[in-house]
């Protein structure tokens, strides 16, 4: 193992900002900012649909505002092929729906709540993701 491209400051600071979003959503609306749940609910449930949709719109506007005000070009690179991207999208959709959460819902909110389910879920998806990268990387 070689450690490369490690950016602890911007990672930690960005994490704090994400944490702020989580607590504003929680103290204001009483809900957990799990993105897979919010997106899925927007698609299939009438409950809080406008709220959910506005969260998603905000999520897309965030990087635009950030790039506009800081004049920073956000580094972004996808090297996967289209068939891989489509398969991966399907697996992420199916998996987060069946497992009821993703990196934000289980990994941040659930762990913050010390939920045993979320701790287990996070360990499992980290392990399968690391194995996947090892196999196809």
């Amino acid at each position, binding site marked *: 193992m070689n450690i490369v491209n490690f950016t602890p400051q911007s990672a930690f600071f960005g994490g704090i900002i994400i944490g702020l979003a989580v607590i504003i959503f929680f103290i204001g609306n009483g809900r957990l900012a799990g993105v897979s749940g919010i997106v899925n609910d927007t698609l299939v449930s009438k409950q809080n649909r406008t709220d959910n949709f506005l969260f998603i719109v905000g999520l897309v*506007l965030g990087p635009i505002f950030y790039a506009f005000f800081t004049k920073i070009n956000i580094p972004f690179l996808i090297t996967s092929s289209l068939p891989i991207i489509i398969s991966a999208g399907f697996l992420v959709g199916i998996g*987060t729906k069946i497992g009821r959460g993703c990196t934000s819902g289980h990994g941040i909110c659930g762990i913050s709540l010390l939920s045993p*389910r979320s701790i287990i879920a996070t360990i499992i998806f980290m392990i399968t*993701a690391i194995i996947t990268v090892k196999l196809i990387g």
Partner: protein
Amino acid sequence: MMSKIISFISGIIFGVGLSVSNMINPEKVLGFLDLFGQWDPSLIFVMMGAIIVSAPVFFLFRNKNKPLFADNFSIPTLKSIDKNLIIGSGTFGIGWGMVGFCPGPAISSLALLNTYSVFFVLSMLGGFLLTKLVDRIIIPTQ
């Protein structure tokens, strides 16, 4: 009205956090998942930053009567480590490792107008709908 403003603002701040930490970038995330190769531990610091902020607030507020702009706190009550949690999370991890996209960054990256992000998000929505459909056929929903 206020709950809508809160949702919108939370979404924006979340998207800014993903940009600052560069978790919006699949290449950065794949660097974290490449534990046995060229490893970039940054994602752990993102999670630590977020959890350090949210954990104390959850602890202080979860037993209060109600949030500011809703009738009650909605926190999942499921406790059991069941088959769905394990299979679902395992499946999600495989998809995450294939490209380096999880739902938050994938949605947020639509801002960058990359065609691949659009295909990923559409497939993910397809995955949600397919699961709902299968769920309805196999297990009659509650």
